[in-house]
């Protein structure tokens, strides 16, 4: 009896995450994908065909014949979409590299800090999440605008005599993304550095490495799993980011999140925006698959 119960329990434990993925990822994705095959219409919802579940199977099949890939063809015809994808990926990639450059030393310092103060440092990294994301991005407008805090400060110490134009440029987007996503980079790198055996560094020093080469040949390669995880955690949401480019970026900044928003709300073209979202997902699935492989490899390396 207990064995049956425990078998049932372990089955349940496996089913729950899969059910989660099914209901909150796969089914919504298929709904979006189906809409992307429809045509826009002045209706509610604003696309055709709409299934009439009372029309029976033949009715559904007949409606399904109206599906087409026209929206995907449309995406290739207008260079706007291609540019938006490319620009999103570039902005996300640049932001990811900048985040890494800032987060790695932070994580390294945290991992090297005395054990007693590490929980406090971790707390400080997570602390910004206690305030609304939107408010924090708005705060950057106040800091970055021409008469904002940053320019006031730099002018008061006579570093510049003209205010820097940062707001509404790509630099503002980089700053916004780096700021918002920094904890997602710091935490995985910290966790990979923190569990590392410090005698490995001593062994490298003993074998003739200077502290810098010891870091480069031993510490950094061993923290790569954390670096990869952090980069994906920043890159993937940054590609589809909407709020930061909308609030901090300029009107000419092209990002796919903004394009999606426009198609959906301004143009009310649900099918095209669904197609945009589907393509975005495909672009993002590739790094996720890579991440999974890297993770599996790191696990099999088993420390």
């Amino acid at each position, binding site marked *: 009896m207990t064995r049956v119960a425990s078998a049932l329990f372990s089955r349940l434990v496996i089913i729950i995450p899969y059910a989660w993925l099914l209901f909150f990822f796969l089914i919504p994705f298929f709904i979006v994908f189906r809409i992307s095959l429809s045509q826009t219409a002045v209706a509610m919802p604003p696309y055709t065909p709409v299934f009439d579940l009372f029309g029976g199977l033949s009715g559904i099949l007949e409606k399904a014949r109206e599906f087409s890939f026209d929206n995907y063809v449309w995406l290739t015809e207008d260079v706007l979409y291609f540019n938006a994808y490319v620009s999103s990926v570039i902005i996300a990639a640049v932001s990811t590299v900048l985040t890494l450059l800032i987060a790695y030393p932070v994580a390294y310092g945290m991992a090297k800090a005395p054990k007693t103060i590490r929980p406090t440092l971790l707390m400080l990294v997570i602390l910004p999440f206690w305030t609304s994301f939107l408010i924090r991005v708005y705060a950057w407008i106040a800091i970055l605008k021409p008469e904002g805090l940053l320019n006031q400060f730099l002018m008061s110490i006579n570093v510049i005599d003209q205010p820097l134009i940062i707001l509404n440029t790509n630099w503002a987007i980089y700053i916004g993304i780096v700021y918002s996503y920094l904890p997602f980079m710091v935490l995985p790198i910290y966790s990979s550095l923190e569990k590392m*055996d410090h*005698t*490995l560094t*001593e*062994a*490298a*020093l*003993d*074998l*003739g*490495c*200077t502290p810098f*080469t010891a870091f480069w*040949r*031993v510490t950094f*390669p*061993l923290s790569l799993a954390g670096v990869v995880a952090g980069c994906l955690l920043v890159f993937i949401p940054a590609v589809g980011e909407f709020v930061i480019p909308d609030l901090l970026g300029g009107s000419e900044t092209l990002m796919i999140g903004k394009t999606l928003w426009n198609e959906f709300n301004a143009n009310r073209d649900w099918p095209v925006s669904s197609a945009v979202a589907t393509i975005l997902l495909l672009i993002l699935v590739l790094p996720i698959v890579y991440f999974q492989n890297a993770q599996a490899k790191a696990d099999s*390396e*088993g*420390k």
Partner: protein
Amino acid sequence: MKSLGSIRRSFAPWADPASKPFISVKNVTKRFGDFTAVDDLSLDIYTREFFALLGASGCGKSTLLRMLAGFEQPTSGEIILDGQSLAGIPPYRRPVNMMFQSYALFPHMTVENNIAFGLKQDGMPKADIAARVAQMLKLVKLEKFSQRKPHQLSGGQRQRVALARSLAKRPKVLLLDEPLGALDKKLREETQFELMDLQQELGLTFVVVTHDQEEAMTMADRIAVMSHGKVIQVATPAEIYEAPNSRFVADFIGDVNIFEGAVGGADGGYVRLEGTNGFPIRMASPERPATGGKSAVAVRPEKIRVSRQPPAHAPVNAVQGEIWDIGYLGDMTVFHVRLKDGRVIKASSLNAVRAVEDPLGYDQEVWISFGEDAGVVLKD
């Protein structure tokens, strides 16, 4: 001429006043905050010596080793290696290599790359590296495992990789921190002899840190017994065992029975102890403690005889008791004999024959006795 223990090789530069030490630790003190890990410690280690630092955990032996490697700097005092002071020289510029207790193998590199690590760092030509790595793999008998990652190896194989890696750069001194601590007993015993052979073959100076006295006794030319940051005695294994300079060393190394008493009158080259509860002791000793003072004699269990009849020299160095416990270990039998005053004396005898007629049993009345050169008169 009588000599203490077995002589392994005629190698005793420490006894020769003309020979210069290779490593000189001079009045070295190391403090961590309020804690003094190494306390005004001095010792000399000679070229090609297999030197063991032995002590309980926290006695400062690992700190001393880490100061030799360069991971810690002495708070005061200095360390001289081959005529050169090591003060301020970082670990990566010292001609010493260390084998770590945890092995510290790089998990992201193959066995081959682990061994080649230090050679690549020195910018050795590729062909030479390959040759040296092959030689090292052969030395530790791991030729077939060159492409494995450390996690694909057994504990004993990892230990060999760590050894090969630390030897690859041909250091002048190899420091070994509990090198066999993670191995099981049988493998540890085999590896002890392999390490000795290796050290002889390569002609290197080994400094090994261990808490395992058997390991130190087996491998080392000389042992430094440490306690609370100080060296208590530096001597060959036989001297440490047969002529400990203090009660601490006698007690720390092996089993020992200690008999205390008042020092009696002059008696040639012998010390007489009176008032040791029932039986006087007469023991050969080069030095004589002051008459009337308190002293003690340490006698190892294997030097104590257990017999039914009193020995001819009774009551000197002989006393009656009752067998309290018998431990049969195969190669020998350990007797715990309880004296009239309640003290329990340990005696052991070699089982040189397979079957004994009328063996000693529990609760039997016996005599324990020992010869006049069986023990050592302790100074404190």
